[in-house]
């Protein structure tokens, strides 16, 4: 059975993932839109930076974040100056790390969805008196809905499953930074295989259910299937 400690880690995990997903959608939407539409020379470098976590070992990203957010890092000094203390080994540090780590899983489906819409509906909206922002809300967002759903689900589940970044910048502090993936590791370390089974099983069922919904409910829309 799940212990109350395990339940706490589950709750914390979903809190981190929920907050990270919200932030990723807020940042990722304008970013993906800009990347889809721009002809700027910055498009390539920005794309590469966004996609970097796909290929970078999580420990590398976590290491740099730890250094930056630590007391002598740039971000750490800044947050100290603001009187917030350092972000390393804190809940918000974990959220920031998750945002960076899972960003490509949000930006790329959105980019694919935006690209598929093309410029035609936007031109139609412009000839029908809709300002660029208006047409984004009234035309692009509804047309890209499957992309948004995919982005949110992938961003969320990917954050739930992260381990390397969490261990580097968050550590293993109960109720603060101890998330499910770390807790499973703890159980295995302590040879508590049955507890590890319960938690791992929960994550397995959760992930499978989410993907099942993704692939069955949204099958009509090709943008909803990023791995095809």
């Amino acid at each position: 059975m799940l212990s109350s400690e395990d339940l706490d880690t589950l709750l914390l995990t979903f809190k981190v993932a929920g907050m990270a997903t919200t932030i990723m959608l807020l940042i990722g939407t304008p970013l993906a839109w800009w990347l889809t539409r721009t002809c700027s020379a910055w498009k390539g470098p920005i794309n590469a930076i966004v996609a970097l976590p796909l290929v970078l070992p999580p420990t590398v990203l976590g290491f740099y974040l730890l250094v930056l957010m630590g007391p002598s890092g740039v971000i750490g000094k800044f947050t100290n100056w603001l009187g917030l203390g350092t972000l390393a080994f804190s809940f918000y540090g974990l959220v920031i790390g998750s945002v960076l780590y899972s960003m490509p899983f949000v930006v790329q489906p959105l980019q694919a969805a935006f690209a598929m819409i093309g410029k035609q509906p936007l031109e139609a909206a412009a000839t029908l008196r809709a300002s660029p922002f208006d047409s984004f809300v009234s035309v692009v967002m509804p047309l890209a809905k499957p992309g948004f759903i995919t982005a949110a689900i992938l961003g969320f589940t990917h954050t739930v499953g992260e381990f390397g970044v969490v261990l580097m910048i968050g550590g293993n502090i109960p109720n603060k930074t101890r998330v499910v993936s770390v807790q499973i590791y703890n159980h295995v370390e302590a040879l508590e295989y049955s507890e590890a089974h319960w938690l791992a099983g929960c994550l397995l069922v959760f992930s499978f259910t989410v993907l099942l919904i993704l692939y069955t409910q949204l099958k009509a829309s090709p943008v909803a299937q990023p791995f095809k």
Partner: protein
Amino acid sequence: MTVIKARFALNYGDFKLEVDLSLPSTGVSVLFGHSGSGKTTLLRCIAGLEQAAQGYLALNGTIWQDSEQHLFLPTYKRPLGYVFQDANLFSHLSVLDNLHYGLKRVKNNLGLIKLNQAVELLGIGHLLTRMPNHLSGGERQRIAIARALALNPEILLMDEPLASLDFKRKQEILPYLSRLHQQLDIPVVYVTHSQQEMAQLADTLVILEDGHILAAGPLSATQSRLDLPLAHDREAATVWQVIIAEHESHYHLTHVDFDGGSLNIPAVDAKIGIALRIQIYARDVSIALTEPSATSILNVLPAIINEFTEGRDGQALIQLQVGKNLLLAHITRKSLLLLDLQIGMPVFVQIKGTSILN
């Protein structure tokens, strides 16, 4: 009369557009040309959809673009209606929501009246609850036209609205367009490469070639210009505006009047006094020096030779004046020599057939 003034320069490397154009404030101006001639690009420049275009554009004295003053009114602020080649309806909205999309964003209370008129005129009242994916191409295009008209625009821009439709669908929509033509009180700029649509709809004809304007002017004056390729085409024709004068139903004929004479045309089911557009193909016109007395051809009219030129393959092209109308005739070069036709010579034209355009 000239109310649309447009001057544009646009360079896409392999394609250059350079035009300077004035269009009248009423009627349909057709931008005519082959694909790649720049007609759609010109239309997009007028709409502000080609932001790279440099130049000047004013409609009814309001400047929409003046690159010298860095003035560029974005598309959504231009009081225009635009019909795209493939309708371009919003697939996530029902027909009714598509029709209301622009209407909601326009600050004028005439829109709803215009929309209701358009819905009736275009016969789309039964489609309002459908989704665009469940419509035929012709239905989609009619909705796109109504959606643009609902804006109560100051100008209607139409980019080959029939090009993506098959012959049957075209025939289904053309009558609606003709009706629109008669009832609209705003200028229409209509892009097409189809001679049929041009003949049926144009009041003003603008011919484009390789990004330049080859000719622009009233329809029949422009289509009968011998220095333009249009008159040399096998399908070359002139369009006349006529008025129904009398029906001769036992012969299945209708008499129509034009400025300077009258004609017999196949019976038309319309009231006396109604205006019609008819088309006379240059290949259906022959020339006689004296009035033919015994001929099966009903339409024999006095005419004066304005101009002629030699065409390809032993052909000669002749432009004639019939009353106040212009007429094109394709005859053989041999006949031209045998009859010794000269400019200013009075002759008789025999018109073998006419086709009714609306």
